[in-house]
């Protein structure tokens, strides 16, 4: 046995873009501390250029992911849960450090986060049946409506729920076939970084989920006005002035914007609204006749 005096190997915390782990092109990092103010890690501080690179990766990821079958998407999501389960202890420690909560609470959050991924995995081949339908139009036509993915979504994870909140934002976005650029909680980014390591080994298509660490106030404006981003999920934006600024930028290409919920309860069973938020209903008509 190796003694307790072993010098541990520490990790460099990087971004997750296009299935790889780059440092910020800016070379910048910022210091993350625990709730007692003690040093935890130096974390990559993503720049606007990193965000633009992530959009390119996300678009590539979208083109592949949105074409995969619903059954396949469900399996990939379930695979994420499998890999997360194997890293449970790491998540629990990350959450304890990040949020300063008890082992019991951190365990409960991790369990719920993994179970939520399973919940959404099961939705992948069902939401279209619930959100879509045939329409009884008054004429000799067959008419049906189906939900399709909106495209590339830029999302801000909630600042306070470092794993469950993050999962609750990202899982529904990708369940419906979108790709995502997710900005982790600025003060508690380490569970998100651990998640990116799970994603890298979970059959997730490269670029489908991209995770940036850094300051949302710095990164988000360049995503909100980016022509190849289709929608914004501002769950983690609680500063009204920043929300306003991002919504103004979003109008440039008529982006769909989901704003922060008022008092989120991440432990409650989600509604369908997050699945619905980043889908587009397509309606197809065809005449009936012999």
């Amino acid at each position, binding site marked *: 046995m190796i003694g307790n005096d072993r010098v541990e190997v520490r990790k460099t915390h990087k971004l997750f873009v296009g299935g790889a782990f780059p440092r910020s092109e800016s070379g910048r990092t910022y210091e993350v501390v625990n709730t007692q103010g003690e040093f935890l890690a130096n974390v990559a501080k993503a720049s606007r250029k990193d965000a633009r690179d992530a959009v390119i990766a996300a678009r590539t990821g979208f083109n592949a992911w949105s074409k995969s079958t619903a059954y396949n998407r469900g399996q990939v999501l379930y695979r994420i849960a499998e890999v997360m389960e194997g890293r449970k202890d790491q998540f629990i420690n990350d959450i304890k450090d990040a949020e300063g909560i008890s082992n019991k609470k951190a365990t409960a959050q991790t369990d719920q986060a993994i179970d939520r991924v399973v919940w959404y995995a099961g939705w992948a081949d069902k939401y279209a049946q*619930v*959100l879509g*339908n045939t*329409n*009884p*139009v*008054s*004429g000799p*036509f067959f*008419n049906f*409506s189906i939900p399709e993915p*909106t495209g590339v979504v830029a999302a801000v994870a909630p600042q306070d729920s470092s794993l469950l909140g993050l999962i*609750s934002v990202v899982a529904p976005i990708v369940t419906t076939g979108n790709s995502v650029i997710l900005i982790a909680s600025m003060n508690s980014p380490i569970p998100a970084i651990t998640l990116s390591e799970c994603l890298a080994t979970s059959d997730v298509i490269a670029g489908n989920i991209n995770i940036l660490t850094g300051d949302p106030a710095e990164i988000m404006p360049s995503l909100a006005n980016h022509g190849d981003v*289709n929608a914004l999920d501002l769950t983690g934006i609680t500063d*009204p*002035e920043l*929300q*306003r*600024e*991002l*919504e*103004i930028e*979003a*109008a*440039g*290409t*008529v982006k*769909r914007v989901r*704003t922060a*919920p008022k008092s*989120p*309860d*991440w432990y*409650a*069973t*989600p*509604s*369908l*609204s*997050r699945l*619905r938020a980043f889908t*587009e*209903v*397509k*309606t*197809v*008509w*065809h*005449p009936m006749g012999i």
Partner: protein
Amino acid sequence: MTFQYAPAPESSAIVNIKSSNGLFINGQFTPGHGTPFKTINPATEEVLAEISQANQEDVDAAVLAARRTYDKTWSKMSGRDRGKYLFRIARLIQERAREFAVLETMDNGKPIKESRDVDIPIAAAHFFYHAGWADKLEFAGFGNNPRSLGVAAQIIPWNFPLLMLAWKIAPALATGNTVVLKPAETTPLTALLFAEICQQADLPPGVVNILTGDGETGRMLVEHPDVNKIAFTGSTAVGQAIQRQIAGSNKRLTLELGGKAANIVFEDAPIDQAVEGIVNGIYFNQGHVCCAGSRLLLQESIAEQTIESLKRRLQTLRLGDPLDKNTDIGAINSREQLNRIIDLTKSGEDEGAQRWSPDCVLPEKGFWFAPTVFTNVTQAHRIAREEIFGPVLSVLTFRTPDEAIEKANNTPYGLSAGIWTEKGSRILAMANKVRAGVVWANTFNRFDPASPFGGYKESGFGREGGVQGLGAYLTSEESS
């Protein structure tokens, strides 16, 4: 060969247009406080009536009336009873359908056969469809306890005045919201007639308020702090301005904006039917249709033959008096719109596309534009990129289905698309790949209250019609 028809005008005696019209606030017609303006018949340039301009004071009064009725009456009324008011409105529109059709044609310039057979019946159908939803909202898939939003501000365009009113008001009322609606400046008359319908239906005062006015009235309405929801149909530029105006306010928003739809015809399509669909796609309602099939994509092998058939068919279209039952192409709605069409078609010629129109005598008075086809159009031309909103078709060609998809999706818009082919698997594959909210396969420009309508990308967000359309006016208990 040209058939000669005797004129068959619908009589305008059925309508009784008041020379001066007020706003409809809290169940009463009241004079507006802004400077009145005139609405004209675009086919004759004759003044039809003087219309009130709502100013800030009027906007405040209308929103206050909508709020009070929402708080005291409408939000507390059972869905069953709300539904019965909507059924009444549907019936009243049916009963006065001819009056509505004639008035719409006079104020808008569209052919009477369209207002009579499309606009008015579908408007009535929208109220009938949504009436039945009012007491069944918990079954619509928005949670167990879907709730109304409050006061909805609704701004509609001039191309389908009553129909767009119905698309907005019917779902808003069915879901328990109250409404302040602003019709377009050039087409306010059927909205004011609808206000009379609200009175005849004994709809509680303040549930529906109608404010006439220009864009400034619309701006004041959008910015009013006591408005919970904004629904807008119109240009992408104005939609973007609204999105910016309400940024940070947490007002709910749905936008139904511009389009530049591709109508894709494959070599195995039934060409005669496709030609009818092409004509219906771009010349219906003078092309004043956001989902118009304004870009015709023809497979190369059948391009020449199809263009020839199309030109032959266009020779038979009858342009003229919109009240004449034989008229196919009516008047352009306004001088402003006519100038825009003229400007864009000129750019088409300047940029090298080839212009063609059938022999067609335009009336001396009024605003008219002959049906026009541009061939040799490239994707870079303005007439292939910008929404013309007129009877102008841009023809492009393609060789493979992949090329057709590339070209169809090469636009910031994504409202609608058409596919013409006899091959079922190709229809489904193309429908799957085209990024548009409504896809018509072997048909075009079909509308139904049960069928959701709305766009992808810069054509806006949210749906109108169908079960999905209810979501625009509901909120559910949401934990996260």
